[in-house]
C-alpha cells in the first residue's frame, strides 16, 4: 500500500458507510441519471452503481476492479461493491473487462481487438464500460478513466492527486485508447514502485512480474543487456576455445572482448542456452543476445570482417549471430523474441541484412546531443537520425535506448525537457515500437528526477500529449507555491542550451563549461525564492532536494 496525499478534502468514511447501510439506493440516482446526458455515479458518498467483472476474471482484471473501487471511494466517498456476472444484471453497472453482462450490452466486443494494452471506455444507456485486451487492457482502461475523466494523477510514488468530488457524474463518451509504444520503460530509481509504474502504465522489463499488475514486457532474468559474456564466460571457454572470442589484429582476446559472431559453435552454445532459459522462465517474453559493454573489440576474423565489409557495418556480425539463434529457437518458442543492441560500434544498420521477425533491435542514442531534436537536419544527431531511418526500414520491432541524465555526475542539470516529446514523436513516426529512458537508476538525486519520470510516463503513452501541461500540473501540485520558481529554473537552463545551441552529452566533466557562473548564480537565486515561497508550507522539503544539484555545482 502506498501513501497518497490527497489535494482535495479528506472524507470521514465511518459516517459515510453508516449512511450506505441504511440508504435505499434504488430511489437515489435512477431518476437523476437516466434522464440526463450524464451518468451520476455517486453523490454525497452514495452510489447505486456496482462494479461487475466476469466470474473468473484474470488477476489484472480483478485488480482493475479493486483499483476502481478504491479510487472511486477516495474521490466520492461511495464504496461500490464488486460483483461477478453470476448475479443478475442491474440497470446501473460499471463493467470492467469482458463478461456475460458486457456481451448482453455490447455483443460485438472482442478482447483480441484491443491487443495487450488497448481499451474501450464507453457509456451505453446507464452502463459504464471499461474493457480492453489482456493482460493489461482492463487495468489500463481503469487508470485511463480515472486519469482522463476524473482528474487522478500519480505524480510520484508518494504524491498523488485524487480529487474529491461530491457529485460524481460523467458525460457520455465512446473512446478507444492504446499506447504509442509496446514497450515503455523509465529506468529511474525515484520511480521504481510497482503501483506507480502500473498506474502510469509503464513497462518494467524484468523488475516486477506481479500478474495482478498485468505482467509486463519481461526479459529472462539476468539477460537484459550486454549478455555476450554471460552466454560464453571466458573463464569457462577461452582456454580451450579462443576461437569463440573476438580476433583483434590477429589475436583472440579473452576479456574485455566480444564474441566471434560468425563461429557456428558460438551460435550453437547460445541457442542451447536460450532454449533452456526460455523453458526455465515461461513468463519471460524476451531475452537479450547483445554485445558486451565498454569495449570496441568487435571480431576482425576473416569471416566477420568480410561480412562487415560487405554490409558496411559491424552490426552485420551481431545480426548474423542473432538471426542464426532466432531462427533456431523460433519453432519451439514462436511467441518469444530475441533482443540485441545497435550500440556504439554496431549502431549503423547493415546494407542488406534484415532482422528476423522474432528479433528486436534496440538502437542506442548514446552519442546524440540530448538538447537538440533528433529530427534536426544538421548537427550531431544527423548520424543517429540516418541510422534510425535505416533500421526502421528493415525492422519489424525496433526499440530505442535513450538517456536523460548526466551519468558522469547525476546532480548536474540535464535540460532536455524541450526535446523529449519531439524525439518520442520522431521515434514513433519512424516505426519505433519500444523506448527505454535511462536516468539515475542507482539512487535518488538526479536533476528533478520525479518530474522527468512522470513526464516521460505520460509522453511514452502519448507523445502528442501537451508536454507543458504535464510539467505545469506536476509543478503546481507537487511544489505548490514554489511552482513558478521551479518553472523559472527549468526555463533558465533550457534557454541556455537552446539559445546557445549547446550539445548536451551524457558523459564529461563534473563541471561542464555550459554551466557558467552567472547561470549558477541565477539558479541559486531562483531556488532561494522557491524555498522562501514554501517556507511556511508543509511541502518545503521538496525544493531543497532539487537544490542539492545546485550546491554540488557551486563547489567548483
Amino acid at each position, binding site marked *: 500500500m502506498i501513501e497518497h496525499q490527497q489535494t482535495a478534502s479528506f472524507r470521514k468514511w465511518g459516517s459515510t458507510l453508516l449512511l450506505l447501510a441504511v440508504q435505499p439506493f434504488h430511489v437515489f440516482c435512477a431518476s437523476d441519471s437516466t434522464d440526463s446526458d450524464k451518468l451520476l455515479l455517486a453523490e454525497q458518498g452514495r452510489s447505486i452503481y456496482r462494479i461487475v467483472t466476469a466470474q473468473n476474471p484474470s488477476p489484472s482484471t480483478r485488480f482493475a476492479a479493486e483499483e476502481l473501487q478504491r479510487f472511486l471511494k477516495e474521490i466520492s466517498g461511495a464504496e461500490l461493491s464488486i460483483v461477478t456476472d453470476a448475479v443478475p444484471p442491474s440497470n446501473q453497472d460499471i463493467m470492467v473487462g469482458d463478461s456475460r453482462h458486457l456481451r448482453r450490452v455490447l455483443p460485438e466486443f472482442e478482447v483480441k481487438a484491443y491487443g495487450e494494452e488497448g481499451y474501450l471506455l464507453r457509456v451505453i444507456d446507464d452502463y459504464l464500460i471499461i474493457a480492453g485486451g489482456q493482460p493489461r487492457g482492463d487495468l489500463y482502461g481503469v487508470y485511463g478513466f480515472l486519469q482522463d475523466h476524473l482528474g487522478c494523477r500519480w505524480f510520484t510514488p508518494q504524491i498523488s492527486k485524487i480529487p474529491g468530488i461530491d457529485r460524481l457524474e460523467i458525460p457520455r463518451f465512446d473512446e478507444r485508447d492504446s499506447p504509442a509504444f509496446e514497450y515503455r520503460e523509465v529506468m529511474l530509481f525515484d520511480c521504481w514502485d510497482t503501483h506507480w509504474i502500473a498506474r502510469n502504465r509503464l513497462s518494467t522489463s524484468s523488475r516486477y512480474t506481479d500478474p495482478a499488475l498485468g505482467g509486463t514486457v519481461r526479459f529472462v532474468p539476468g539477460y537484459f543487456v550486454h549478455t555476450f559474456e554471460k552466454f560464453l564466460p571466458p573463464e569457462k571457454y577461452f582456454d580451450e576455445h579462443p576461437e569463440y572470442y573476438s580476433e583483434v589484429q590477429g589475436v583472440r582476446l579473452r576479456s574485455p572482448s566480444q564474441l566471434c559472431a560468425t563461429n557456428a559453435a558460438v551460435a550453437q552454445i547460445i541457442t542451447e542456452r536460450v532454449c533452456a532459459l526460455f523453458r526455465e522462465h515461461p513468463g519471460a517474453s524476451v531475452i537479450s543476445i547483445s554485445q558486451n559493454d565498454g569495449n570496441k573489440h568487435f571480431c576482425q576474423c576473416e569471416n566477420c570482417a568480410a561480412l562487415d565489409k560487405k554490409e558496411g557495418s559491424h552490426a552485420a556480425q551481431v545480426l548474423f549471430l542473432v538471426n542464426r539463434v532466432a531462427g533456431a529457437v523460433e519453432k519451439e518458442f514462436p511467441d518469444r523474441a530475441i533482443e540485441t543492441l545497435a550500440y556504439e560500434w554496431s549502431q549503423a544498420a547493415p546494407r542488406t541484412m534484415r532482422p528476423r521477425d522474432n528479433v528486436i533491435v534496440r538502437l542506442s542514442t548514446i552519442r546524440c546531443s540530448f538538447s537538440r531534436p533528433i529530427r534536426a537536419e544538421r548537427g550531431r544527431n544527423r548520424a543517429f537520425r540516418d541510422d534510425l531511418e535505416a533500421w526502421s526500414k528493415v525492422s519489424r520491432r525496433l526499440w530505442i535506448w535513450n538517456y536523460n541524465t548526466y551519468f*558522469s*555526475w*547525476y546532480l548536474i542539470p540535464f535540460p532536455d525537457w524541450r526535446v523529449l516529446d519531439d524525439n518520442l514523436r520522431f521515434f514513433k513516426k519512424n516505426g519505433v515500437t519500444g523506448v527505454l529512458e535511462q536516468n539515475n537508476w*542507482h*539512487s*535518488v*538525486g538526479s536533476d528533478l528526477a520525479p518530474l522527468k519520470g512522470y513526464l516521460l510516463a505520460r509522453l511514452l503513452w502519448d507523445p502528442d500529449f501537451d508536454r507543458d501541461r504535464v510539467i505545469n500540473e506536476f509543478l503546481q501540485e507537487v511544489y505548490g507555491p514554489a511552482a513558478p520558481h521551479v518553472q523559472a529554473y527549468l526555463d533558465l537552463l533550457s534557454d541556455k542550451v537552446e539559445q546557445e545551441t549547446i550539445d548536451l552529452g551524457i558523459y564529461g566533466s563534473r563541471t561542464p563549461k555550459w554551466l557558467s557562473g552567472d547561470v549558477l548564480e541565477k539558479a541559486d537565486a531562483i531556488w532561494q525564492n522557491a524555498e522562501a515561497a514554501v517556507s511556511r508550507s508543509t511541502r518545503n522539503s521538496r525544493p*531543497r532536494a532539487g537544490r542539492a544539484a545546485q*550546491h554540488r555545482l557551486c*563547489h567548483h
Partner: protein
Amino acid sequence: MVVYEGDPRKGKVLSVDLSYAERIRRFLEVSQKAGITHLREGEPDAAANAEWLQSLLKASE
C-alpha cells in the same frame, strides 16, 4: 573557494571560504536528507564524496 597547495583535490587544503563551507554544510545536510547514495554511474560514491567534503570543513575550522 578552496585554495590547495598543488593540484586541486590532490594537494593539501590551505583554506576554505566561510561562504563555501556553509554551502558544503548545506549540501551534506540536503543530500543526506534526500538519501542520495550514488553521484555517478557505477559504484556507490556519495559516501566518499561526503568524506572529502567533511575534510574540507575540517580544514576550514
